[in-house]
């Protein structure tokens, strides 16, 4: 297919970006930072790597924009799901906390 010939990006450059980002990920977990900061950094690095794979290896950068919107739908659904699960999670935390301190919640006498 002749029209696809011009679509090939520099794959080796993408490979090096991915390899370097992986090494940074491995370095980040040993950094003397707050656990939350490390988590945010790792999420950002993973999303960056995923975007590189999707845009260049899967040629999303060269496809119709509509396909890009279709492709990011699962990410939106997964992010939404985290917020859907949060109230449930807090409820579980509350009950386990309550179970840990029965003396406070249980009435001593009637």
């Amino acid at each position, binding site marked *: *297919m002749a029209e*696809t*010939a011009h679509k*090939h990006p520099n*794959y*080796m450059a*993408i*490979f090096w970006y*991915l*390899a370097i980002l*992986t090494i940074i*990920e*491995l370095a*980040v*977990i040993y950094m003397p930072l707050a656990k939350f900061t*490390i*988590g945010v950094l*790792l*999420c950002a*690095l*993973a999303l960056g*790597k*995923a975007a590189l*794979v*999707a845009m260049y*290896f*899967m*040629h999303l950068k060269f496809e*119709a*924009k*509509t*396909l890009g919107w*279709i*492709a990011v*739908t*699962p*990410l939106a*659904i*997964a992010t939404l*799901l*985290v917020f859907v*699960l*949060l109230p*449930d*999670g*807090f409820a*579980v*935390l509350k009950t*386990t906390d309550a179970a840990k301190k029965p003396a406070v919640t249980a009435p001593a006498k009637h």
Partner: protein
Amino acid sequence: MTAATVHSAIEPAETPLTPDSWGKLGMWVFLVGDAVGFGVLLAGYGAMRATSGDWPNPYQVLGINLTALMTFLLICSSVTMVKALEWLGRGDRSRAIQYLFFTALGGAIFVSLQAYEWTHLIHRGMHINQNPWGATLFGTSFFLVTGFHGLHVTGGVIYLLSMIRYVAHRPEAAASYNAVEITGLYWHFVDLVWIMVFTFMYLI
């Protein structure tokens, strides 16, 4: 009003979604569905972990040296996959087949290393319903998510091997370009999912 204009009013012949290749759009739609599956698993994992008081620290318990190597291997196999397509585009079928084989080999080594890792962890007492380090769901979610991904890699290796046969039997190299590009979409998706799984299940 003629029948033709009525028809085009119902559905235009060209829409923003009309692709060069319907097969490619089909694979994208499948992958989006599959991505929702992985998204649900990872979001569920996050919720279970966030609400557990005794979740072990994954990278200390699981060890990430081998898994980092596996990650690197999948990235390499993604590169051999795009190289296979590139050679096919240039009309060099034997080089394309060679690179498809390297890709399948990378996948096979990945699954073998995963089997080794699982065996090692099982020997250390990690099971789907118990583990020596803390929350029971740690083992459950680990085997479920990495297993689901491992199945995808195994399926991908079979897919790649069947594509080698397909490319070899086409009358000319260009005839299989589209099919190999679709195979590539699947393979890169498996790589993309591993990037997420590696980050959420091992590093964080």
